C-alpha cells in the first residue's frame, strides 16, 4: 500500500504526493455542497480519496485514454453523496500537474454522464470484480 502524504495545502485544495511519484489533488469543487447540482461530491475523507486513486492507478487498464476508473468489489461501497459507487480519475494534460478525480453515476444525474468503456466493464465482469447485475446497471447508465 502506498502512503498518501500531504504535499501542499491551498485553502480547501489539498494535494498529496503518492503512488510512484504521482501527485493527487483533492479538488475543492467536489467537496463543496454549494456545487452539488453540477459537481458530484465525495462522501469519503480526503485521504481515503487519495488512497482510492492510488489503488486504482496501480491496477489501471488502458481502456480509457482519458484516465482511470474505480469501482469497489461488486460496487458495494458508496463513495459519493448521491449514492455514487464509481469514480473517474482524470489524467492531467501536463504530466507535472496533479491528477484529480470525482464520483460518477449515482442517483442524481447531472447530464452527459461519463461511463466506463464497454471493454472495461467486460473486464471487470470476467475477473469477477463485478457481478452481472452491476455490469448491466453500469451499461444502462443507472448505477
Amino acid at each position, binding site marked *: 500500500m502506498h502512503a498518501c502524504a500531504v504535499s501542499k495545502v491551498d485553502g480547501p485544495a489539498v494535494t498529496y504526493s503518492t503512488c510512484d511519484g504521482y501527485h493527487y489533488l483533492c479538488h475543492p469543487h467536489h467537496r463543496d455542497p454549494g456545487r452539488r447540482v453540477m459537481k458530484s461530491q465525495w462522501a469519503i475523507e480526503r485521504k481515503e480519496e487519495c488512497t482510492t486513486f492510488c489503488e486504482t492507478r496501480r491496477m489501471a487498464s488502458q481502456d480509457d485514454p482519458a484516465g482511470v476508473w474505480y469501482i469497489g468489489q461488486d460496487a458495494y461501497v458508496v463513495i459519493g453523496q448521491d449514492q455514487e459507487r464509481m469514480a473517474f480519475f482524470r489524467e492531467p494534460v501536463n504530466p507535472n500537474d496533479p491528477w484529480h478525480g470525482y464520483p460518477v453515476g449515482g442517483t442524481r444525474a447531472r447530464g452527459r454522464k461519463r461511463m466506463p468503456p464497454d471493454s472495461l466493464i467486460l473486464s471487470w465482469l470476467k475477473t469477477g470484480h463485478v457481478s452481472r*447485475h452491476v455490469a448491466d446497471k453500469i451499461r*444502462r447508465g443507472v448505477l
Partner: protein
Amino acid sequence: MRTVRVVIPGDWADGWMYKETIILWDRSGHLFEVKQSDLRHHIASVASPHEAVLCDYLLFRNDWKNSPAFESVMRLPQVRHALVATPPEEIEPFEPTLIRPIMREKLEGYLLDVEVYANRVFTSTTAGVFETRFNPDYPNDRSPLHRLSDTRAASIAARSGCLAVAGGDAGLLTKNIAFDEESSLDRKETSPLTIEDDYSERVQFASHHLLNYRGHDSPGFLRASVRKEPPAGRAKFETTVIEDFDRPLALDRPINQAIHSRSRVDVRDYDDESSSERELGSNHVVRGNSNYQLLVESEFMSQVVNVSAYHGRPVQVAPNVNYNASLDDVRLTQHALSVQGLASGFLLERFASSVVFTQSGASTLCAEPRIRLRTFPHSRRHNDCFLAVADDFVELVGFLDVE
C-alpha cells in the same frame, strides 16, 4: 402484500409479456417464447387451486384483478382467506419444453432496452436500435431485423403510433409507427427518426406525452398533438395516434412551486427559466414516472406529483395527495436507480432490492439484487405485475395489496 412468483429458469437477458405470450431474450441475442396458456396449464397441474387462481389474477389477467367484480368477491371472508391468508407456495420447477425459439436474426451488441408494441419488437443495444415484426399467432413468420439507427440508446418507449428513443448526445428521437406498413420492413422504407430534444438519457410516456430525462433534477415535458383513427383490422376501439410534439417544457420550478404551495401550478415555457437558474437546482429530484404520476424525492420525503396536459388547457402539475409515504416508505423509496410504472403505482429498482410503491405504502418484493426489471403499464392484461431478470432465471411477480 400477498405475492405470487413464477420462475422460468435460464440465462436470460430480458423479457416482455405481450398479449398471450411471454417473450424472452437470451444473452446471445436470440428470441424465445412461452405461451401463457401453456404456462397457466402447467401451474394448474403443479400448484394448489388458490395459488393457480392468484397467478391468473395477479400475473396473467390484471384487468380481472383491478375489476369491481374481484373486489366484490374478495369481501367474502372464505375467499379472502383462501387466496390471501395462506402462505405463498413454492411452485414446482418450470417445464423447459414450454420454452420455444422464435426464428429471428441474432441481435448485434449488448441488449440495453426492449419494447413490444403493435406486433413489433423494438430493441436497443450497444450497436443501435432495431425493429422486427412479431405476431404472436405466427411467431416464426421470419420477419427481417431492421436497424433503425446506429445510436446507442439506453432507453426506448413506444405508444400511440410513436417510438421514442433516448439517444444520449444524439438527442431524443421519435418515429411514427404506421399501422399499415405491413410490408415496409422488407423494403427498409420505414419513416425516419426526428430529433425532438438535443439530449436524452431516458424517455418515458406520460399518457401520450413524453418525459425526457436529461440529467436535470426534473425531466422535460413534451406535449403531444394527437388524432383519433377509426378501428382498423380486428380492433374494436378507435386508436389515438401522436402527430407531433411541442418543444420541451422544464418542470423543475413548477414542481417546486406545486409542492410548496400544495396546489396546482401552470407550467410556463422553457425560456422563462434560464440555465443558471436550473444550475442552482432544487431540493426535489424526479426519480421517474408511472404514466402521468411523477415520483419526486427530497431529503426525508417521497411525494407524487401529477402532470397533465388536457386539450385546450396549459400543462399543469399538482401534488397527488393519495400517496402518503410514511418514514418507513421513504426509507424504501429513496435512492432508486430506476422507476417504472404499474397500474397501482411504481416499481423501484434499487441497488440490491426491488420495491413496489402504491397508495398503501412501499413493500420490498425482491430482497436480492435483480439484473433488470420490466413492467408493462400500457398493457391491459399485465399492467400491474412485473418481470425480473436474475442470474439464472426470470421471475414473473404479481402482488395484491392487502392489509
